[in-house]
């Protein structure tokens, strides 16, 4: 066991994954520099340039080549440097990665992992702060997962690699170095598609994922200190979505707040709300609240804080659901 942050836990997972000869990493600057977030630090030195591959600047090429490798029996892990640079690969993802299993009726599969750092909060330049996970949810055939802790980061990355289907693996940029946690040295898996029930409560359910879990947990602390009994769920996986845990929670509390960093319209929170009201309408004591980013481009450093949902906004939303 070692105290690791998310970036280190991912590095440990990748290093363990590379023990399997079928695994290769591809991406811009993943080798010599160890990646802009140092997630792949030291791996080139350890596994050599055939396994840790610095590529030309071409995201569609990276994903398309990784796809071909995966179809041919490898287990590639492709890195997009930032989510804002993953869009050129969107066609490859939605039209090929997500579809080859169905297109070939199971004869060919593409078990690859596409790692994408996402989210705002570090005052970065334009395109470096995106949360566009919903577009990948609209690409049937891929799984979309997002860890929020070092333990989950390692366990989910290894599970994603084992998965027979392609996985979009989102990494919350602003949590990379902000949380430390004991992480086992050996390989382990955290199953995909299962949410984490972080806190049991009766009064209100806070549902979040990825980069927003810090705010969600902080809001839960504040509410709990006020005597509110809070149920907290970290979805961890958007596809598959653990609706069961969410619905169960909604039925118990009757009050639900769904938190996402992405712009609001047709984001994943809308899906959660839709399912809650479909399956738990008669348990609801108040409208399900969405706390989200806005339908705008993420502001640059000086005004970014107005965009990313704050603890206060989450708390206020929870209080609204609790109003008599």
């Amino acid at each position, binding site marked *: 066991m070692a105290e690791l942050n998310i970036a280190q836990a991912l590095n440990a997972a990748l290093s363990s994954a590379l023990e399997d000869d*079928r695994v*290769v990493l591809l991406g811009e600057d993943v080798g010599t520099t160890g990646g802009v977030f140092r997630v792949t630090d030291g791996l080139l030195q350890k596994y050599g340039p*055939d396994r840790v*591959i610095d*590529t*030309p600047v*071409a995201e*569609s*090429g990276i994903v*398309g*080549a*990784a*796809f*071909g*490798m*995966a*179809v*041919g*029996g*490898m287990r*590639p892990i492709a890195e997009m440097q930032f989510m804002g640079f993953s869009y*050129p690969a969107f*066609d*490859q993802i939605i*039209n*090929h990665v997500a579809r*080859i*299993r*169905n*297109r*070939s*009726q*199971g*004869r*060919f*599969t593409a078990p690859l992992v596409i790692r994408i750092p996402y989210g705002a909060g570090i005052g970065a330049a334009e395109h470096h702060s995106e949360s566009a996970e919903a577009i990948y949810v609209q690409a*049937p*055939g891929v*799984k979309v997962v997002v860890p929020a802790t070092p333990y989950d980061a390692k366990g989910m990355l290894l599970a994603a690699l084992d*998965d*027979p*289907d392609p996985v979009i693996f989102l990494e919350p940029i602003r949590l990379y170095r902000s949380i430390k946690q004991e992480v086992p040295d050996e390989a382990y898996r955290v199953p995909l*598609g299962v949410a984490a029930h972080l806190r049991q409560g009766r009064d209100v359910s806070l549902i979040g994922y990825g980069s927003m879990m810090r705010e969600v947990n902080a809001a839960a602390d504040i509410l709990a200190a006020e005597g509110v009994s809070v149920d907290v769920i970290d979805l961890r996986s958007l*596809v*598959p*979505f*653990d*609706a*069961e845990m969410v619905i169960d929670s909604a039925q118990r509390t009757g009050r639900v707040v769904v938190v996402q960093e992405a712009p609001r319209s047709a984001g994943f929170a809308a899906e959660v709300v839709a399912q809650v009201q479909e399956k738990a309408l008669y348990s609801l004591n108040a409208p399900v609240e969405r706390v989200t980013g806005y339908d705008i481009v993420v502001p640059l450093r000086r005004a970014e804080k107005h965009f990313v949902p704050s603890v206060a906004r989450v708390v206020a939303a929870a209080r609204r659901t609790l109003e008599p």
Partner: protein
Amino acid sequence: MSPEPRQILAPDGTRHGESSLEIPAIRRLYQAMLSARVFDRKASAMQRQGRLATYSPFEGQEACQIGSAAALSPQDWVVGSYRDGGAMWLHGYTWRNLLLGRTGDERGGRTPDGVRVLPPSITVGGHMIHAVGLGWGERLQGSDGVALTLFGDGATSEGDFHEAMNFAAVFETPTVFFCQNNGWAISMPTERQTRSETIAHKAVAYGMEGVRVDGNDLLAVYEAATAAVAKARRGDGPTLIEAITFRVGPHTTADDPGRYRSEGIVAEWRERDPLERVRRYLVAQDAWDEAWQREIEEAESRAIEDIVADAEALPAFTPREIFDGMYAEPTAQLREQRAEAERG
């Protein structure tokens, strides 16, 4: 790179160059071209009868497709487009795959076990990079397998062509890029698709070898493909082959080529027919006879009738089955939606 495409067999069937193929091999490839033509014409005809959905005929491109795929070994990969049924078939994808697919049935995409052909890609441009990854993966797995990708002149305009060519060159992947320059991308003539002197010249941008070949000449295509495959297999990297050919039919059965090209040019190209050229050569070598030809045609024709009849008899997917192909295990959402679909 010479702008003059290499040719071994002239349109009149005379040979003016060396070929590594002996007569029996040429007969086998001629037979394959003939089968492909019969298939292609039958498929177009059946589409007109409403038995198949839109079909994209490859008539006129048989030498490209048979000549290139013939250069491969079974461990090699074929990654083609909607128009590359001939090459895919020679490498083990079946007429049944193609026809079932064209009836509008996903099961057509299920490549037979052991066969290394990806089901056809319909988007233009996206598939070439897959051949880069496949070839690269072979090498990383210690195999000397090669990946052949077929695509059109129009596909060279897509960004994905560029990224595929660049990756292949930078990583020296065992990939053969086979461009069938058939003169048109739907209604767009090649000279308005690009100002490159030739498509083969595009290889310069990647430090790759570019080769130009008469795409209606089976022997020339075969030699070019064989050389590129051998080079890739040796570890000497990728090659771009531009095969000059012509799509004699419409872009698809939904297309009316009268809107963008004259009958005159079609007639001109019929003179350069890839089958007739080999047939003349075989005749001169006393290696062709009418009965043989008729036999192939008839056998293939019957086989195709049977396959389509079978395909039509196959029950279409039920509402339940449309969910099965998506993931190894259906997600909770899909199980729920499947139940909904079954209720109707």
